């Protein structure tokens, strides 16, 4: 099972965070700090895996963004790399030549895609077409009755 996914820039700025298990805010802050420090300090041409406490950290850099995924110890590291890759592909398909700014300005879409792809720390749907279709469908919904959604946002 996956534990969390972080996206941060080369400068260590956090761009997206997703936690699959309940973790306190303080702990999250600490993890984010640890992750950025560890991953940014890696030498080029070293492997994409790290040990952190009892978890495995799989990271990969795409352009200026680091994708950093924590999995449990007995999981398959290569598969985790592919999960990251598939997420990037999904983002790319939706945004069309995705870049860091897309994720900054449309962060909710990035979360949306992630939720369609991974649910509760497990891969749910691996097909690019299907994920895309359901995201487009929910985009439609959002535009259709934006008044009701506005209300929900007020209550939240």
């Amino acid at each position: 099972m996956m534990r969390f996914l972080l996206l941060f820039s080369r400068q260590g700025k956090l761009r997206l965070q997703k936690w699959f298990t309940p973790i306190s805010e303080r702990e999250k802050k600490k993890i984010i700090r640890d992750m950025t420090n560890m991953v940014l300090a890696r030498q080029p041409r070293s492997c994409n895996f790290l040990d952190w406490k009892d978890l495995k950290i799989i990271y990969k850099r795409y352009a200026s963004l680091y994708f950093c995924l924590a999995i449990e110890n007995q999981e398959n590291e290569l598969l985790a790399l592919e999960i990251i890759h598939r997420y990037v592909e999904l983002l790319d398909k939706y945004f069309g030549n995705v870049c860091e700014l897309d994720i900054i300005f449309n962060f909710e879409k990035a979360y949306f895609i992630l939720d369609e792809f991974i649910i509760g720390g497990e891969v749910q749907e691996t097909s690019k077409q299907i994920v895309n279709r359901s995201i487009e469908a929910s985009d439609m919904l959002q535009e259709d009755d934006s008044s009701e959604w506005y209300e929900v946002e007020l209550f939240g």
Partner: protein
Amino acid sequence: MKRLSSTFMPSNWLSRAQRWRKELDLQSTNLIEVCMALTVVSQIFPKEMIPAILPLVEEKLNHPKEIIRRKAVLALYKFYLIAPNQVQHIHNKFRKALCDKDPGVMTASLHIYLQMIQENPEGYKDLTGSFVNILKQVVGGKLPIDFNYHSVPAPWLQIHLLRILSFLGKNDLRTSELIYEVLDESLRRAEMNRNITYAILYECVKCIYTIHPKSNLLEKAAKCIGNFVLSPDINLKYLGLKALTYVIQQDPKMALQHQMTIIECLDHPDLIIKRETLELLFRITNAQNVVVIVEKMLEFLQNSPDDYTTIDLVGKVAELAEKYAPDNEWFIETMNTVFSLGGDTMQPDIPNSFLKLLSEGFDSVEEDRKLRLFAVDSYVSLLQGETRKLPQCFLQVISWVLGEYSHLSEDHNRSTVLRLLEKLLDMKQTSSETKCWILMAMTKLCEGTAGVCVAQQVSETYISSMDTVLRQRAQELQHLSQDSELREEVLPRDSGLDPMEIDSSLSFLDEFVSGALAAGAAPYKPPHQRQEELAEAKVLSLEPYGLALPISMSSCSITDRHSPTPLSMSSGLSGDSTDVSHRAGLKLDGVQRVWGRDGYLAKKESVEEAAPVQGLTPVHSPSLQNEGDGSHSQTPTPTPTPEPDREKEQLASSLFFGVSSQSSVCLMGKPDSTFNRRRKAKVQAPGVTEQLSSSVAPVSNAVDNLLCNNLQDSNINSVSAASSKQTCELSPRVPAANGTCNTDCGLPESDRKRSNLSISRDNGLVDADSALSEDQGSRSDLCPSSYLPAELCGLYRSEIAPLCTAHSLELSACHVHQGDDMILIIFISNSSDSQVLQIRLDLKSEQLKVTCVSDSSVENIKSHTVAVYQYSLAVKRPGVDVEVDGTLSFLLPAGTPQTKHFSYKLPLTAFIRPLLISTEEYGTMWLGFSHEVKQNLTLVDDGCEPLTFTLNLLKNRLQLHLVEIIGLEGILACRLLQNQPCLMHCRVHAGALAVWLRSPVPELPDCLVYHCQRVLQEK
């Protein structure tokens, strides 16, 4: 909505939950809305909310749209992870999801199956065929193209299936045979050079080495690993090393094939690779190569990046040093480095077990003396150098050793040691806890005028300290240094071996506690419980009814002071007795032994915990003392030299020395054939390993026993007859379950006869006798049940189940209820014509405490005989089912050693006994228990009295005690052997049975609810 939940942590669960619920309640016809609701549900979700939402999610399993079904399955998986008991009843729906026509839903259901099979592989063996079929179809490309990932068919699904299959095929030849073909197919298909195919290959390799071995697959897997390890891609290399680490436990020779690569990885610039290589080396360590490997590990530690790695590695070095140390000097020096590198972050049991080892010693007195002397010498020279950077916990170890053993040393007189210790006291960095240790050491050492003088000086400084413990020590030092006779008495030399008796349950306080309770004091609640209750008060209550019964009971106080149960319970309420006892015998060493039977134990024991102080730097490297040791003298220095190749070869020869000789296949853990004396000392440490004495009588002995028992104690017979009667009454379905075996049904009958009529006892004897001679006559018939020990005949027992077969040996087992004991009996029958030698049976279990009952150990089993082993079981950690894992090792006639693993599972209900208490006692106990579970169960209706009928059913099936039924409520009580109570409160509510269980043991209520559910469902 969903966007919000994923962006912000919800601050108010209540309003959110209501909204989700509304959303689900709406039964929206808009698919996307339902999808979103399900997505939110499977995000981080509080356990308490599950009952409210569960039926709605369940309903979605039948939704016509596959995406909804899939999400519902995943939501249920999430629930299963959080609270397995709550989704227990929908197991057949999972099966339906597995058979869903849509592959996506089926894939989703595999998450649940992986989890469940991991927990209990036995229960799902029948599904092996289906999983193999699915995998075959996937590999064959039968899935829609949507599932492809970079033109590899459904890799996630493949990997899931491979994992499931490896759990199913583990230690099971028959299941493994089903799997071989598809594994071969997967290996063949996955030959494209992509990351994703490598991921599948890696999983295949792991599976091949997990299931029952098959030679041609092993060859292919080994080739695969070779490709991984040799790959220029660093990620693959890492994975290759990992696979190698996994494989090497079973086949140490694999390490030899790749030794040069391993050496290269050891010098790799990437620390992660280096670390993984050390992990691999750790697994192949033996007495021959320990020096080199430990040296490599310590070298890595010197520049280790983080605490977590340091703690882990330091523990491993300490373990290796204790197991395989070639000589005293090396051992002490290595431990010195461990202490100074590990500092105060390391696990406290490392210094503890080190001190224990020193004080308990080994077999020879002379060796012990040398070891201690060397330790003293090395510490004195350490203290004479720079001491400021030594970690506190190392200083504590040093001062204890110096205090205890410096009298052994001729070179250093006490005053030098005292002065060194005094110097430590004056250091700024020294924590007050360390100071206590130092003062203790000084107390042991102050002798002669010079010593007394120093002691006086020191004690004057600290006698006015703000720290009370420190002040106490200073006082002791002052008084004892003046009165040498008293000192001899209080601190006798070399007395470290006398075991100290500790009353860990603090039962001497029971009287006080019960007195206070009787006087109206509130029962003690441990802090965690108080916090839980506080938290509970804030949480929304989904419970259909309130505290009706317990409150009315709380008014009853303890009325019966004479009966033992409430008294011992009241000590349980104080939070100490039970808390300690259900973690039986764990870590008393780590606990400060402050109070003993005779009062305050003001001895060296205050020492056992480490103070958290920073500052860790290497002090001493252990690489200096190889000269005297011929076999290791060629050990190279690790620094790079001009001839790297020869260097590496040399390193390889020292690293892999002795690896090839370990041909014995060791499936679990590290190869352990070299049984070092230090290891023995380690084994003796409490709670580390179970003693492995296996004992039993060969058949002829069993016969003797049987006769003997029959002749000697008619008492025992009558007792056992009585208890057998009792157990029969308690469990009415016993005979049915037991009906297969004639001998057993016969025996209790004759027992009973004997106890009733004194004359018929002789008849009984004759019967038994003739039965035995028949047995001996037909020796080829090795029915285990006829070898059941005499004293256990006639008691309620489970059916004898076969465990495993290994060559001509057949293992079978059953469990017997003997009063308050649960006895596990293992039969080993040898059906071959030759003798089987050196049989050893080791049992262990995480959940159970296993103790060997029979005292004589059987080494060899003659041909066509049965050996019987008896173990007594007690529950350490309750689970729905509890399992014992065992290893059978023996020597074939040809002389080759063999090991075989097996496991035996029994339901927790086997350990449940009725707890006979009154309603008043129930009331007081109820309030004292902290762990509770609430659940709605189905009410079994027989027409007139559903509650009574259901409760009686539970009572009979699970051996509960029905305390009382009042109107629509009923209370039951039971205990888990030996003495852990669980109370159950039931109430009829809206056609269902609302049960509420409480117990002092955390897991017990959960497990009991599960069994209740099972009983009612079977009905």
